[in-house]
């Protein structure tokens, strides 16, 4: 029993996905050469579902995420969010980048309030919400600190708060913890699981860490290079609320091994002998970029 389908808090609404990606393609034309960053990707994400997109560096997974966020156009196919085609960025979608991207001249609170500043909404509702989010991620007392006074993990916590300020329906995360050390990364994964306990939103989470994907997601989409496409769609058999202890279970290790095999072979089929001699470091795929 490698993968068991588990009922989700909110079951996927049949074929009416909240995020629908159909035959999405992305070709970058540089001079007279064109590079296919993404070829023919299709998947659905149900409302309230946490989906990880797992793949090696350079497989186009970040491009795919940015297309879902309206920050990249697609060369072909269709991307629909909440029933309407993506035409550009939407305030109902929060995005976290690999870099926390905090503005160095703003305090923690001002950084969290930045979306309200851009939307010219400076009412109490937003500042109340900002304070609650800051408390939730454990940064109470740091409201007036500047980003350079915070650790890497704390900066990403601020970025989470900022992404959640508008109360988005969807949170897109582009390898948000990949620049952190392993210990801080675990802490951030735990923090994210905590947030999900009270705050479950639809989420797309791009990562190249198998462990992270299995730990956080309800479903893992496996992407490969050449062709840059989704080769497997694996349901994660751990329910919610979830905590770090699932990582200690044999099922967890088994699922990780299975996914590792898929990526190594670049196919949707499990490796011949899942779990044997990993060529790549456990929990890691390829090098950090």
């Amino acid at each position, binding site marked *: 029993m490698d993968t068991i389908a588990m009922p989700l808090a909110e079951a996927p609404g049949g074929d009416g996905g909240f995020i629908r990606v159909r035959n999405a393609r992305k070709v970058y034309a540089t001079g007279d050469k064109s590079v296919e960053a993404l070829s023919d990707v299709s998947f659905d994400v149900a409302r309230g579902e946490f989906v990880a997109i797992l793949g090696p560096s350079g497989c186009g997974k970040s491009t795919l995420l940015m297309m879902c*966020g*309206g920050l990249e156009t697609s060369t072909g196919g269709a991307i629909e969010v909440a029933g309407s085609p993506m035409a550009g*960025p939407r*305030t109902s979608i929060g995005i976290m980048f690999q*870099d926390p991207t905090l503005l160095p001249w703003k305090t923690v609170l001002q950084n969290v309030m930045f979306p309200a500043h851009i*939307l010219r909404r400076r009412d109490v509702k937003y500042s109340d919400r900002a304070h609650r989010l800051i408390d939730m991620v454990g940064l109470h007392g740091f409201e007036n600190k500047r980003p*350079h006074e915070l650790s890497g993990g704390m900066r990403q916590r601020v970025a989470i708060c900022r992404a959640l300020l508008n109360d988005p329906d969807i949170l897109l995360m582009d390898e948000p913890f990949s620049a952190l050390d392993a210990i801080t990364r675990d802490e951030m994964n735990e923090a994210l699981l905590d947030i999900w306990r009270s705050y479950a939103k639809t989420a797309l989470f791009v990562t190249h860490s198998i462990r992270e994907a299995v730990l956080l997601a309800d479903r893992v989409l496996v992407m490969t290079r050449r062709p840059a496409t989704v080769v497997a769609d694996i349901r994660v058999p751990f329910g919610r609320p979830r905590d770090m202890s699932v990582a200690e279970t044999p099922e967890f290790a088994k699922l990780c091994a299975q996914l590792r095999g898929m990526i190594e072979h670049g196919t949707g089929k499990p490796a011949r002998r899942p779990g044997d001699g990993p060529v790549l470091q456990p929990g890691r795929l390829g090098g950090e970029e």
Partner: protein
Amino acid sequence: MTGGRQTGRHERLLAFALPVATAIVVALVWQATVTLADIREILLPTPGAIAENLARTLPSLLNQALVTGREALAGFALAVVAGFIGAAAISSSKLLREIFYPAIVAMQLIPKVALAPLFLVFLGIGAEARITFAALLSFFPVLISTAVGLHNTDLTAVRLCRSLGASGWQIFWSVRVPFALPAFFSGARISSTMAVTGVVIAEFISSTDGLGFVIVDQGAHARTAAVFAAITVLCALGLALYGVVAGIEKLSVRWYRG
């Protein structure tokens, strides 16, 4: 660790004392050389003679410095505004960049001092010509550093703004400009010295007052000590303007970093 703090204080004291000591030594060697070698004052006056002249003519020199300073400040202000707007324009449009950037680089290579007489031909011998020439000299450092600063804005920050639905105008003011501030100020600091240089050059060519005029006029009468006195005041003026800009820069960096 008081030892560490003490070393810090020592270092700061040394950083202040060493240049002062160097200046004193240079002045003493100068004084001794001129006296011992019996160099005529018309060729090289002693520091003592210069100081004496400076003390005697200071009120009138300060009046002249006011004239030069006012024009330098006007030229500098023009350059900062024009440089900032120019940088904003070329960093926001690829077309404008391709049209103007080669010309800007080419202008950097021209010895712009050679253009000074033309400005007097175009704009007359009044303050307008001197201010405009000072602005021309000090325009390029602001333009180029600010353009580089705006261009090097954190791209993810721009993406973040776009994801929040920010307009181009909002992105420019709330992200690009703050990110470019350090580069802007390093350009402005250089520009401030250029502005003084520009006014003085223009005064050399055609003027009836200002420190540049004093230097040329006294030089023509071989009053070398008076020339040195005027140069001293000119140095102080340049330093003052530079100091003000550096001070504002320091404040802005403190704001930027917290």
